[in-house]
């Protein structure tokens, strides 16, 4: 947590409601997100109990598993979920756009939109990952055949869960994290993981303070947990009797009795999910109200690229993702995530002066006014005469950059500024920084109009760079060094699921 965010939390305590920690929204919010609220049965390994799912705020689809320990019912749930999720994913496969690739020598196509799935919290993302794992290796033939949509659903859920790990991706988001990125509450991060309490701070309503509203929101009777774990009291007092009654009714063979018992069970599950369903859409509308940052679209385009590629992979009969990545794949993936994390952090700072302020506070960035400018300065010390304008920026911020460091300005991409002098004035608390500019000045020895900041301009300079980071190089999978276990094992590669794979889960 940065000092600015901690201060915002302190301000939230005093103000009685959450405080903004960004000036813009840093993630894409779809026009048509799919909200997915899974519930799992306590004690079981990710056994679905039910879910509310859908794109229509007023008409969610309720899925219920009357006996979560029953294997057929579990995969029946998967098939029902697939009936909602797969058509939703397909609905984005209409219009494509052409994108220049390989420095303009080739053209590739990507879909103009992509799916966005919203779950309440990070445990919801964990559910998606594990349910993907439990379904993607299933087979449609053999001993325990499942509906053909089940393994496909598993591949897509795994894909979404993988994207959720990718910093800056918006394909699978946890609402608590999406809101927490933009607001600081007057409670701890631990308590922010409770969606109702978090929203209570952002929007307390009814003349309550955030703190009071959050206490109300923590009452599981009024605001059931947002899942996937259920409230133990609900389990013991409502769910368990309803399940037992259903089992007895089903065993009796009387259809009327069975369907009545199922109705009771459905209402019980629905009662736990409906409040969260409303919170989710309130979260969506809160996020929509924020103006999007300038680089949000670019990151969403990456998501669309990845979505388009994965549809090709699946269409081509691609095998399910392996249980574990092999050494080379894992290293590549980690490298991708690290690059994404860095570029996401830089992009947010470039898009949002309030995020940049974190870096100003630590001395990695400063904002100041141009007080001197020599736009026509020529450097003739080398073999060739080059245009190297100099400017002096005067700032009240803490300046910790050193002479020789290369800085960038978010408003002037493509231009570098080398630090020549740093002169603090202790009497005024101001610092003069002389910068030598290169790049983005045009081709001649006199600068293109507007390419050199003028006296009086207010600018931000930072050590953060948005420029392209070349990817690292890795050996091919066949050449995995022995230090890393040698070439991948079968379970580390995507392969067709075997009969054992389909059976393994049940003993």
């Amino acid at each position, binding site marked *: 947590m940065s000092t600015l965010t901690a201060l915002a939390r302190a301000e939230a305590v*005093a103000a009685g409601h959450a405080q903004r920690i960004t000036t813009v929204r840093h993630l894409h919010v779809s026009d048509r997100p799919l909200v997915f609220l899974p519930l799992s049965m306590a004690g079981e*390994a990710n056994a679905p109990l039910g879910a509310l799912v859908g794109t229509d705020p007023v008409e969610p689809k309720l899925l219920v598993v009357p006996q979560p320990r029953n294997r057929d019912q579990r995969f029946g749930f998967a098939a029902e979920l697939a009936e909602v999720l797969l058509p939703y994913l397909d609905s984005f496969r209409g219009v494509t756009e052409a994108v220049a690739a390989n420095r303009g020598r080739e053209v590739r196509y990507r879909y103009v939109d992509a799916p966005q799935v919203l779950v309440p919290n990070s445990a919801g993302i964990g559910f998606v990952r594990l349910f993907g794992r439990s379904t993607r290796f299933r087979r449609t033939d053999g001993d325990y055949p499942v509906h053909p949509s089940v393994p496909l659903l598993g591949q897509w859920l795994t894909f979404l869960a993988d994207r959720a790990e990718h910093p800056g991706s918006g394909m699978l988001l946890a609402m608590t994290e999406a809101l927490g990125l933009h607001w600081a509450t007057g409670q701890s*991060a631990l308590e922010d993981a409770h969606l109702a309490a978090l929203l209570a701070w952002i929007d307390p309503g009814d003349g309550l303070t955030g703190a009071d509203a959050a206490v*109300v929101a923590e009452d599981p009777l009024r605001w059931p947990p947002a899942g996937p774990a259920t409230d133990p009291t609900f389990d013991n007092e409502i769910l368990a009797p309803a399940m037992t009654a259903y089992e007895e009714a089903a065993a009796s063979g009387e259809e009327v009795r069975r369907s009545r018992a199922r109705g009771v069970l459905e209402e019980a599950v629905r009662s736990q999910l409906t409040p969260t369903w409303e919170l989710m859409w309130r979260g969506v509308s809160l996020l929509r109200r924020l103006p999007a940052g300038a680089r949000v679209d670019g990151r969403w385009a990456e998501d669309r690229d990845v979505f388009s590629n994965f549809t090709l992979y699946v269409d081509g009969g691609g095998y399910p993702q392996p249980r574990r990545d092999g050494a080379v794949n894992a290293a590549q993936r980690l490298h991708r995530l690290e690059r994404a994390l860095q570029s996401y952090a830089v992009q947010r700072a470039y898009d949002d*002066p*309030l995020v940049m302020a974190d870096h100003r506070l630590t001395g990695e960035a400063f904002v100041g006014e141009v007080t001197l400018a020599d736009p026509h300065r020529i450097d003739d010390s080398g073999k060739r005469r080059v245009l190297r304008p100099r400017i002096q920026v005067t700032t009240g911020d803490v300046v910790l950059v050193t002479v020789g460091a290369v800085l960038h300005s978010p408003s002037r991409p493509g231009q570098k500024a080398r630090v020549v002098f740093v002169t603090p004035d202790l009497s005024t608390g101001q610092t003069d920084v002389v910068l030598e500019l290169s790049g983005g000045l045009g081709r001649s020895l006199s600068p293109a109009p507007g390419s050199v900041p003028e006296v009086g301009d207010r600018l931000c300079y930072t050590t953060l760079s948005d420029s392209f980071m070349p990817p690292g190089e890795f050996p091919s999978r066949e050449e995995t060094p022995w230090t890393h276990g040698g070439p991948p094992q079968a379970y580390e590669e995507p392969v067709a699921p075997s009969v054992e794979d389909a059976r393994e*889960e*049940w003993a």
Partner: protein
Amino acid sequence: MTSISMGTSRNTAERLATIRGGAKPKRHNARTIAALTRNPGCARRAVLDTAGVDKQRLAAYIDFPARFGQSGFAIARGNAFESQVKASGAAELVKLLRERLGLPIPEVAYDDLETVTGREKETPEVRYARSRALLLRAAAGEDGAGTLFDHPLLGLDVAGQRVYLEPDLIAFQHEGRFHVVEIKSFAVVDGQADPGKVSAAAIQSAVYVLAMRQMLAEAGYDPEIVAHDVVLICPRDFSNSPTAVLVDVRKQLAVLRRQLGRMTKVDTMLAALPPNLTFDLAPDADGVPTRAPEALVDALQTVDARYAPDCLSVCELAYFCRAEARGCTAALGTSAREELGGIEQVETALALAKGELSPAEEQTEAAALLRNAARLRAELLAPAGVTLPPTLAPAGTSVAGAAG
């Protein structure tokens, strides 16, 4: 039933009895001992736990009930898994132990110390003595001393109280090493499990390792013959079939030792408290408390707490302490408190940030940073017109309003 150990003086024991009041001391178990290692700096918790006060009952009575429910489904699943692993002389377990520990089978003897005689009728002391005798025979390497001991009763001194613990199982390996085996019903999927659950299991197992080591050391054996690697048995993937993993609990052992060592120094803590301090609920003949809740709240406030948001998941009194800590930076979490320069009160931090309060000497640096931060927030939020969106939801759907 409470034996007074050497570390606790007669006086201290009487003080603790007064603090507890008429009620029987709340028994510790591996879970509560493990919980002691969280937030060791909290005097309130240390005093209440050492005295054996029923914190759950106390919290409920002063209207800050703890929310530690356990689902019947989870309990049922846990029991079913445990009995499956232990069925037919622990057949499944033996197979796993062979693979993991290299237990030379065929001679596996399985002693269930729970069912030897009706457990209900036996006092813990008797069961402990029996477990101790059996385990010491095994440690001595006597023939036919057994291999697997189910439900042995172990003892540990916690703040001068003898606490009895019941591990799920202990395996004995022939090469002269004991291993603690813990059976848990959370799944290990593709070799990975919920880290929170694994660390909870590890610290509980460490309590058993410590208790066994203490017992063997007292009998003159090398305590290190109890391995610091415990065997964790969990369901594999999404199935019911068990898998075994070795978990190294050396770190947990060190934490436990330090914390248990602290608790024996309860005398110093008691010296600072009012002599007549008590958390007695003063129940009447029907067991209904007669003492005013306010009096108990007053009593609680005489003992300093060190609230941190983590407490919510481990301590029964956490909701009370949280309410009390309103307005403290600690309530915002450890990292927020640190970023605010370790300043205790939110109000102070804000006043320093606004420059309305001149900082004490040790606050100068923190205050400068806070003033800078406040300047930046003010500079950037005001022109952008970024204020909190007013209530968004249509009437009747706000958080508090929709609940009715």
